[in-house]
């Protein structure tokens, strides 16, 4: 079970590798990847250093080019594929059929992973990408129960990677347009959800309003800690009630089900958070490394350590975690 960790810059990449990541994933500094945030990601030159740092230590580097180009931008995605391939990274993580088609034609030996942004939740969907583009791994969306993950893994023509920790998308990835509905920018088109450019914090004597392009996502009373206005994690009114109608601010945490994931035969556990700090990457990588090592060694006797859980809670959204869709009652 490979541990795949996020890196938004070189210090994070080093933190991931120094703390036990088997592989690191990263992206270029533009809209070709789904963490297109100001000040984040890699230039061609910093990526060269990243490749060297990873390869000298026997670790892998994957490059995410996992947004959906429109005709006017397609050349930029091709260039991203070519640049990553030229640096001899270990794999590309792709979502768009057109980009996959280009990559497998131009770089037939390059290893391709299917991004979670491709939104594939079953074996027939995986087969499409396997037969047409020769993908060698699929990252599953965070919408399947653990039994469903097991079933897909068993039927899939390629190994599966699942999310193990980090911010939780509650909508199936790659088909969520909530962000562009409010701001014009979505993960698919722009590589960002609820982009900071459209966020406004308004303080008053009644507390704090958080807005996304003017839409009130949440209101916090005086003294209440205000969170980032991610669209699906605000408090809204439905019927008579005002509540977290879609999801609370919370992070996914799979420490409790690692033995089950191992038994299912998942190839890799992914940590979300390329937008987070090197300190976050270091801490989460260290905990996940320890947990996976224990799980592989102790088998059924494995129990998540209380200290690990506290550490992960402390860096989670809303300081709380969930098993998300893996756990049926969550749905």
């Amino acid at each position: 079970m490979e541990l795949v960790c996020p890196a938004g810059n070189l210090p994070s990449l080093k933190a991931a590798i120094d703390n036990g990541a088997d592989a690191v994933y990263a992206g270029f500094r533009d809209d070709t990847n789904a963490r297109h945030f100001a000040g984040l990601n890699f230039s061609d030159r910093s990526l060269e250093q990243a490749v060297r740092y990873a390869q000298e230590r026997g670790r892998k580097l994957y490059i995410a080019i996992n947004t959906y180009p429109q005709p006017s931008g397609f050349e930029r995605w091709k260039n991203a594929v070519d640049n990553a391939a030229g640096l001899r990274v270990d794999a590309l993580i792709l979502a768009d059929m057109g980009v996959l088609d280009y990559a497998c034609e131009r770089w037939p030996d390059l290893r391709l992973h299917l991004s979670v942004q491709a939104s594939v939740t079953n074996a027939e969907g995986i087969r499409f990408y396997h037969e047409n583009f020769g993908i060698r791994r699929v990252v599953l969306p965070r919408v399947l129960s653990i039994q469903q993950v097991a079933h897909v893994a068993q039927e899939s023509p390629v190994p599966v990677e699942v999310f193990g920790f980090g911010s939780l998308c509650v909508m199936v990835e790659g088909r969520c347009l909530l962000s562009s509905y409010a701001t014009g920018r979505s993960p698919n088109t722009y590589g960002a959800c609820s982009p900071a450019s459209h966020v406004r914090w308004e303080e008053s004597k009644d507390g704090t309003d958080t807005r996304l392009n003017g839409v009130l996502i949440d209101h916090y009373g005086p003294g209440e800690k205000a969170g980032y206005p991610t669209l699906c994690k605000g408090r809204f009114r439905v019927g008579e009630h005002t509540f977290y109608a879609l999801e609370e601010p919370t992070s996914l945490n799979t420490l409790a089900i690692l033995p089950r994931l191992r038994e299912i035969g998942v190839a890799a556990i992914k940590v979300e958070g390329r937008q987070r700090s090197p300190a976050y990457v270091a801490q989460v990588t260290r905990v996940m490394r320890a947990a996976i090592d224990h799980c592989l060694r102790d088998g059924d006797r494995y129990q998540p350590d209380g200290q690990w859980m506290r550490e992960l809670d402390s860096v989670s959204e809303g300081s709380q975690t969930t098993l998300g869709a893996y756990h049926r009652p969550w749905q």
Partner: protein
Amino acid sequence: MRLSLGPISYFWPREQVLDFYRQAAASAADIVYLGEIVCSKRRQLGPEDYLDVGEALRAAGKEVVLSSLTLLEAASELGALKRLCANERFTVEANDVSAIQLLSAAGQAFVSGPSVNIYNQRSLRLLAAKGLRRWVLPVELGLATLRDLQAERPEGVETEVFACGRLPLAWSARCYTARSFNLPKDNCQFKCIEFPDGRLLQTQEGEDFLVLNGIQTQSALTHEAIALLPEFQAMGVDVLRISPQSAHTFRIVELFDAARRGGDLAALRTELLTLLPLGACNGYLHGLPGMDHGAPQAA
């Protein structure tokens, strides 16, 4: 320019669905999409019922397409999809790549729905070679991209645009309608049937923002593009889609029918805006946030 009725996205009682399609048979719609696209627990009509409805519509001169479930999770859902794709009577609208895989493997021509991500010419070309004969523009894409894609559209592929209806914005493992009653999905008590146009979600300031429709989230505002009809025609768009709502759908079809026959677009649009549950939007087509309403088109 042909008009289509998209699949019913809500959970309506059986009689209401059957009545809707009796009206559809007599309407000006040229194409009718049938089937459950949101939730496999909704079984007021079964697969055989849809085939019967389809035959009746075909007899009334309609092109009939069976729409597939959008988000598949359970093995049973994949089984149902396999049976749908193996039907030999009607074309299937693939709303997930798994349906494309099954249909292309079986050598069946297919339509791709709005939640299949075709964002560029290379994807379109690739799917055309797999048997795509019509595609629906993903709803977050605008006129500029549509124009570029039309310019390179492969031979034999028709283009359809979502032209009126609440926008399908997101799909989840979680049922938000059930959640709004503090119920889990596995014991949802079929609450969706109480909301024939979905359940409204407002901001804390009372702004109508989204609509909860089971595991699907829609826009609260209705996307409308009637005044853009001449532009669609000029670009060679083949079909405009009207997404069913619980009231006025067939009046809306009449308005679009009048529009394609050269009616006064400004007047038709004025009436259309009075028929939408909570107001209109169409920002996506203008490269704006989807909830925006672009400047009224000169008509």
